[in-house]
């Protein structure tokens, strides 16, 4: 019998116009979307290899437009891992992430859930309005949630954020396999250094122990 591949549901959240769709389309199809095409709800699937294991990723790209927030709750229920995306050109988009995380934790009834903070549009350095320190600060506050700056346009760090999220979900999976009742209870292993941001070359893998 064919070894059954793991399947994970990823949900992309963040304010309108931060580049959620561009990021996802780059990751899944290796394509850069030029046109003005606000998302209402798109789904993608991609099979990837994470540390020698094949995973199926079901990726849900959501509307950033605030008028659609009523749909979020359903997404959060089905999602197992979340990319919280902001744009480095707008501070507001970063501050909005806190509410999203609160809502996720509440709906998941957990103290931690696989999340990656993504600061997109890193190619627009001249328009930068958010210093990476602010995101790092947020990451620390949330218990050292991994943080990357990405450029969907230049395809920098795109694979890395998805891979990082996958590893977190796999680890959560493994932890719950040990008989603890959910990834919520298990704190991430200590000794993790606060993530660094140095442009495009930063996506080093952090924890590889997967049981």
């Amino acid at each position: 019998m064919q070894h059954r591949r793991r399947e994970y549901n990823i949900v992309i959240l963040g304010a309108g116009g931060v580049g959620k769709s561009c990021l996802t389309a780059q990751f899944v199809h290796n394509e850069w979307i030029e046109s003005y095409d606000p998302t209402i709800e798109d789904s993608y699937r991609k099979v990837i290899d994470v540390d020698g294991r094949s995973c199926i990723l079901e990726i849900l790209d959501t509307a950033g437009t605030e008028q659609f927030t009523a749909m979020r709750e359903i997404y959060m229920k089905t999602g197992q891992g979340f990319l919280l995306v902001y744009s480095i050109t707008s501070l507001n988009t970063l501050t909005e992430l806190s509410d999203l995380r609160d809502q996720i934790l509440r709906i998941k009834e957990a103290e931690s859930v696989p999340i990656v903070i993504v600061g997109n549009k890193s190619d627009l350095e001249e328009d930068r309005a958010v210093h990476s320190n602010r995101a790092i600060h947020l990451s620390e506050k949330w218990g050292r949630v991994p943080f990357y700056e990405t450029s969907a346009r230049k395809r920098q760090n795109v694979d890395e954020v998805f891979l990082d999220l996958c590893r977190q979900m796999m680890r959560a999976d493994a932890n719950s396999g040990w008989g603890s009742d959910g990834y919520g209870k298990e704190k991430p292993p200590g000794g993790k250094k606060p993530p660094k941001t140095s442009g495009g070359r930063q996506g080093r893998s952090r924890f590889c122990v997967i049981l």
Partner: protein
Amino acid sequence: MLAPSARNSTSSTSSSFATSSFTPVTRQNTIGSDGPRSVRASKRYSVTALYLSMSAHDKDIEIEDELAKVQKTLRDLKAKISSQSKKNFVLEKDVRYLDSRIALLIQNRMALEEQNEVASHFDESSELQEGTFPNDQKTQQYGNLFFLLQSEPRHIASLCRLVSMSEIDSLLQTVMFTIYGNQYESREEHLLLTMFQSVLSAQFDTTPEYSSLLRANTPVSRMMTTYTRRGPGQSYLKVVLAKQINNLIELKELNLEINPLKVYERMVKNVEEDTGTLPANMPRSVSAEEAAANPQVQAIIEPRLTMLMELANTFLATIIDNINETPYGIRWICKQIRSLTRRKYPDAKDQVVCTLIGGFFFLRFLNPAIVTPRSYMLIDNVPSEHPRRTLTLIAKMLQNLANKPSYSKEPYMAKLSPFVSNNKVRINKFLNDLCEVGDFYESLEMDNYVALSKKDLELNITLNEVYATHSLLEKHYKELGRDTEHLSIILEELGSAPPQLPRKENRAINLPLFSRWESAIDDISAALDITQEDVYFMEAKSIFVQLLRTLPPMSPAVRRPLNLRKIADTAATMKDMGMFRKGMRGLELLNQLKDLGVITDLDNYQILQEEVEQELVHLGSLKEKVMEESKKLDEVYKTIRDHNAYLVSQLETYKSYLHNVRSQSEGKQRSKQQKQHVLGPYKFTHQQLEKEGVIQKSNVPDNRRANIFFTITSPSPGTFVISLHYKGLHPQDPGPDITPGCLTIKVHKLTVVTLPGRNRGLLELDLKLDDLLEMQQNNHDELDLEYVQFNVPKVLALLNKRFARKKNW
């Protein structure tokens, strides 16, 4: 002097506005088709509006004809809608807050202080008491401040840009529902739109590229959401969407999924369930490309594509056909987006411009209502899975139409591209047509004079709204920009802003508005740069129309053809002082106009007489329109009230829940002191519960239903026992068609136990309020009692109604 022909041509324009200040805003949609009016003509219509509006407040004579009655009904209705939507806005905020806290409460993770904080959100659900400011001086200063804020929207516009997203909600509440809260008053509506424009154009100035325009969540987008949820926006959504969405959600089993992967998965699942195994050529998971290439999948998808396109076409057709129902304000915003885009990006093609209009009209207004119709009060329940997906697909298709779709995101959507290519021309025309509405700047100037001349401007506002606005102004004052001289004088006088009052001490006040810098207008013709003849003529017309509407229909004076002098004479000889005065004034005006050579008694004042007749004809057809509008607004008001009832019941639920939690934690401290209040049992028949919707499905045969009844007891706060009884049956006997015995039904954490025994029901259900709330929280609407299925929200409502322990917490 006016040429008669010119006067006639303008009077047709003016008459459509002659219904005084409560002219429905939507009717101004027709301005665009009239072509450009001269400034002068627009001022003339304004003068008519002014006279009629003053006469509406004129205590001299009370017009009581049919038109006046229906107009009064309409006016009352509008006032009710305005105040009710404000209440709902506040309630929604509370419910939203509690929604986010209740999960924590359920998990008992909330600290005591926080419980108190939560509790404070219930205080305001009761009506606010009337109150006043500490002294007259304050009343005057604040009255002047809010007049300034209202009539010079630029201050609030700047403020909206400066405040943080966390401050914006309370600011918007004050702005949208209080300062410009009369949703159907043209002056307030126009001032609000002016403010919009100023915030919008600032956003255009600060956004580097058009692709990120109007995308982010900013004060502007929050304003747009709030704005679209006012009365007119709600009516419109109901007209264009409610029927179709309701038809669609009836078809619960209609699956129109066209994503090959999802279709394939379901197919595999069906095969597996039917046969128990999977054929070798049917792997469990495939790639998107493989799924799309699968002939069986294609065969399933093909007819669905046709159906989706048909559905989307009906939605689109209704939207396009109802262009004239679209609220004026929404169309005007579209127009601003178009002109700002053209100004900022002169090279932008029409396609780009349409994309941005669509980015507001579809993305911010229509599509959210299509995708989540429940939160826009279009339907009662959350749609089930298939209709929800169909609605999402339709919204996506409409959005694709408005924007340039990139099928690289979801390749399967490309199959729907015929819908886009077939309708592209149509949609671009529609979006451009949407922008074809007139501006209001000239009438706004006039409306402001009218407002000043009324001298009885009042604002119904709460102390906390006043203080919150004051404190925001204080905080951001330095950044407000130019032309703030008057504002700074008042802020200086007011000193620092008082802190927010506890909810219990908050008061509603009627703040009289005035301006110390602008005095009421005495000489209108000078203020507006129009001739004295114009003013006399309009006043005369207005007086004769009033007289004709007030004189008894049998009076010889109202016989046709109209004899204006006779009408005035008749009125001037009446005992009623009001009529007497109007009659005298009418005679005086006839003479003055004659002396000025505008009219002549040789032709029986024909010019004036004709205009009076025209006005009466217009008012006659106006009655029909007013009644029609009242009917529509009645619907809206009903929806808003239903929504209010829903919000209130939601708050009630939280309230009893919190009460429960608190009395439990109190109970821990002084365990036995607490009295055990047993409430009930209350008895309900099967029929009763069915009627109220508590029973949403029943397996009891029709002929047995009369024998079934339920009792509900609350042994302690927050716990309920629901028992099912069968009349005329000894508990030991097995009921016909109802087999007791020890059965346990699991519904989440609920257990139903049947215990045959003394006086107990056939079936008993121990319910904890927490569990019900949790079920509701999870959108789990069914409570299965084996023989009947209860609807969770309705059960909660019933329990609240019967067992609310309102006083003692």
